[in-house]
């Protein structure tokens, strides 16, 4: 049992209170994982390309930031 599902309620809540939630809104239902999506080769390659590109750009921003901090006179 996941940590999420611990502390199960043991009382008797009002019926209409419980019916206020849709069945798939219950914690026990929301904890069930949705099925894994199969990505085709093009999509996977696109995601990888985007990731490499973003990491490169992030590295450039961080480099410029660190250099700026080091070179700023205190």
């Amino acid at each position: 049992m996941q940590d999420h599902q611990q502390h199960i309620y043991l009382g008797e809540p009002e019926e209409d209170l419980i019916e206020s939630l849709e069945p798939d809104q219950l914690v026990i239902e929301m904890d069930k994982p949705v099925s894994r999506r199969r990505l085709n080769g093009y999509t996977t390659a696109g995601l990888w390309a985007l990731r490499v590109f973003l990491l490169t750009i992030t590295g450039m921003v961080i480099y410029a930031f660190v250099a700026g901090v080091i070179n700023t006179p205190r």
Partner: protein
Amino acid sequence: MAVKTEPSEKASSAEATAEGLLTPEDLTRSGDRRRVLEARHRGRRFGLLWLLVGPGLLVLLGENDGPSMLSYAASGATYGIGFFLPFIAVTFVAAVVVQEMAMRVGAVTHRGYGELIFQRFGGFWGWLSVVDLLGTNLVTLVTEFIAIRVGMSFFGVPAPLAVGGGLVLVAFSIAGGRYWRWERIALGLAVFNLLFVVVAVMSRPDPAALAHAFATWTPLPNGSLQLFLLVLASNVGATVTPWMVFFQQSAVVDKGMTPKDIPQARIDTVLGGLLAAAAGCGALVAASVLFVHHVDTSQLQAGTGFAQALQPFIGYPGAAIFSLGLVEAGALAIMTISASTAYALGEAVKGPHSFNRKLGDAKSFYGINLGAAVVAAAVVLIPGAPLLSITLNANLLATVLMPAALVFLIMLANDRELMGPRSNPGWLNWIGIAVAVLVGLAGTSYAVVAFFNTVGWHFLS
């Protein structure tokens, strides 16, 4: 919801009651949902809207945070109202488009954004998304405490007291064990974001000049290309960031919203966009007084800065309201960004991730919520910490990493197995792609110019 679950067998609410599978979280959420159903049943349109607004307003006003308001003010002080006033308005349109997608995916799937990335695309992409979020959130949280510190210093409040106040606010807001309570505290605080509109009015802008700026996007900025790209990318990062996607989707789930609530949730998101755009433009218009009077603004963000610089032109009351606005911007964002951090990590490790859990039942969720704020607060109090550089770069980091979050969001919103008939229409995909390209270009162009200027190749300065 069209989504398949594993195992596929679904229990009804009544069956769950009979089997004793309800958690206190279900009960708390169902109490709030009952009021929504009653309002809908009795045809109380405004009552229903009042119950359902929250995530959209909070995410968009929350993104009008410390560094964002300083970015808008810096835009006005550096370039006047010409180009950036309509540009900021357009970025909020982009933000509303993105956030509507996040809201819709949350309402239909009842799962947070991080949770869906993990389950639908696997742990590798899931952890990359969460690591991106943690990096940007931590840096941004630091800047929120900087905003509080700067705003309070205008009134002579010492830095430790100002920063401690921010932490007390976070601790107080999460202590109730109910999403509704946390949300209403945050909404009460969010109203004060409109202080920037008050300051803008006090700066007595020329209505004709405002209309001219919106109509023509001129005068165009001139001067250093790197500075222009820094301000441009900061403004993009001030309105469209990864934490917003994580937060709104998780908040919609935590609030218990369903597909029937989507019309009201759209109003919530659009209203949030309008109010946030008004406040953001207000900060720019107020600070444009400094541009008109040729005040050097290059170092203003380091101290009480803008408020003191504005005081000769808008008086002490105006400067004080500007400072209070900064404090509000930082305080609200600490709450929302800490929450997005706790939601995302809880979803990643399959731990508790709901404000509807009691403190003792969700120690990790509340611990991360407060812990993230404590770490950021500690950085702000380090003597000699480069607060100015951190503030300027916080939005940039968000801008650079946003395209990845956008691509996954668009994929989720188009996932017919998850979304069924509520998946994105084609025209919305084109707008979403345009937003991703705009954000990507803004971040990339600044990064390239700043990097080559830093290594000494000044061909683009």
